[in-house]
């Protein structure tokens, strides 16, 4: 494994209790500082792969049957999620999963709890600088905010610890296309500011392929296609198996 790789998934197979394999011999790498898109239809195994990487399989009664997840050179298969996050991994989860009854600032402070207490205020300031909306709403209960603001909050909570690797799961889900674009703009800034590598799971293939450098396409638990984002976008196989012809070149069609 190269020193330039932050995350490598090696021949990973994952199963859930009393069900067949959800991932079958999947391999994937995220270069240090790189942005990788993970594409696939619903049920292709994207969320399972993210769970395997972040350590949430246990919570969903799934388990790694074979293969490994290596983060920053270290096999993390057996580490619980909070330890992986302390190693420098962070996740902006699907469905956002914010703390609805806590204030915006408390939500961010939960994310900041892995930092030494002296650095928490700096973390808050950095996130507020990135998302001024959150600063305006810092005293409000998170559950009362709009979908876009909640998505910003989930991202902010993940970013506050300045992760080396950011896992972004279904960021565009349920958001207006314009808003999605602006959040992606912010993500670009994040990479410039923090140097974080990113693994992006995205329904909107066109958007993701435009943003990422490399891409993987999952199909029924297997990697069907991988390569440079531009190549993947051009591939006819992906149009047939996943993107659907009418969706390519028509970003936001699902919104």
């Amino acid at each position, binding site marked *: 494994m190269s020193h330039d790789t932050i995350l490598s998934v090696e021949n990973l197979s994952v199963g859930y209790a009393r069900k067949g394999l959800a991932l079958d011999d999947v391999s994937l790498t995220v270069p240090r500082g790189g942005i990788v898109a993970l594409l696939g239809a619903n049920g292709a195994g994207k969320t399972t792969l993210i769970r395997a990487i972040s*350590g949430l399989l246990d919570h969903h009664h799934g388990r790694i049957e074979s293969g490994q997840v290596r983060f920053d050179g270290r096999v993390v298969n057996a580490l619980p*999620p*909070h330890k992986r996050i302390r190693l420098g991994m962070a996740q902006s989860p699907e469905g956002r*999963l914010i703390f609805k009854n806590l204030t915006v600032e*408390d939500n961010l402070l939960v994310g900041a709890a892995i930092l030494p207490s002296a650095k928490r205020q700096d973390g808050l300031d950095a996130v507020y600088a990135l998302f001024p909306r959150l600063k305006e709403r810092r005293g409000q209960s998170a559950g009362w905010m709009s979908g876009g603001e909640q998505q910003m909050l989930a991202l902010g909570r993940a970013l506050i610890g300045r992760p080396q690797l950011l896992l972004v799961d279904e960021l565009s889900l349920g958001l207006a296309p314009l808003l999605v674009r602006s959040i992606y703009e912010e993500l670009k800034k994040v990479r410039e500011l923090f140097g974080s590598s990113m693994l992006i799971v995205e329904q909107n293939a066109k958007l993701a392929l435009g943003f990422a450098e490399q891409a993987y396409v999952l199909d029924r638990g297997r990697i069907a296609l991988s390569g440079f984002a531009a190549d993947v976008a051009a591939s006819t196989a992906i149009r047939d198996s996943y993107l659907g012809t009418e969706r390519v070149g028509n970003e936001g069609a699902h919104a």
Partner: protein
Amino acid sequence: MFAQVLFSGLALGSIYGLVALGFAVVFKATDVFNFAQGMFAVCGAYFAVTAISALDLPFGLAILFMIAACATLGVLAHIFLIQPLAGRSMLAIIMVTIALSIVLRAGIEIFYGPQGRVLTTPLPSGVIRIGDLRISQLHLIAALTSWACMAIFGAFFRFTSVGLLMRATADGHEAALVSGVNVNAMNRLAWAIGAVLAGIGGLFLGQLQIVSPELEAIGLLALPAVVIGGMQSIPGAIIGGLLVGLIAQFAGSYISPKSTDIVIYGLLLLILMVRPWGLLGQRELGRV
């Protein structure tokens, strides 16, 4: 008579509120309806008896011993009984807590014998008289300590970093997991706090009365207290405890001592029918 009953009701209600608060902390954090909470209170009283009578510890150390023992009990219950059942149906987990309470009771009867024990502490046991009103110093201290404990834990949840992480965990386990919270540690802490609050309540109940497994019945008044106050509400548990104490004393004194259970559980049924989320609870019950 009214003022007298009011005072007793508030004093005992404060203790119920304390035990109910422990119950609510566990329920909020881990979604477990802990039927062993009454037995935790009994265990607290017996731990205090052990520390004072058997180990001859001075009162302060005895309290620390009791708190440590209760916390350990709560943590062990979570590690060995609750955590392995994560994701199982609520019914299965409730059955486990009922089984735990039965086992604890049997253990106490074997270890300490069926005879009630006396808890001798240096707490004052005199009476303050204000006109016709007799204020038992012990009741007063129990009430004040209960309020102090509630304030301390309230401040802990509100103002400390660990308190924040506990509130976050209670808000959503998966959200806490993806945010880097050690959810298991938070849940264990919740069980420890729940057991300690029950234990402190049990210490006072045992001091006011006698230490016997029958204190469980009083400890279990925490259940109607939290249902009346609101399952998801921390202040609700405290208010519910106070209400149950007042109702028990007023019904006992003005109707008949036999009527207290009927009135308390009658109110419980009424609440479940017209306002199932409790007096202070929120209508939509948090997570799914």
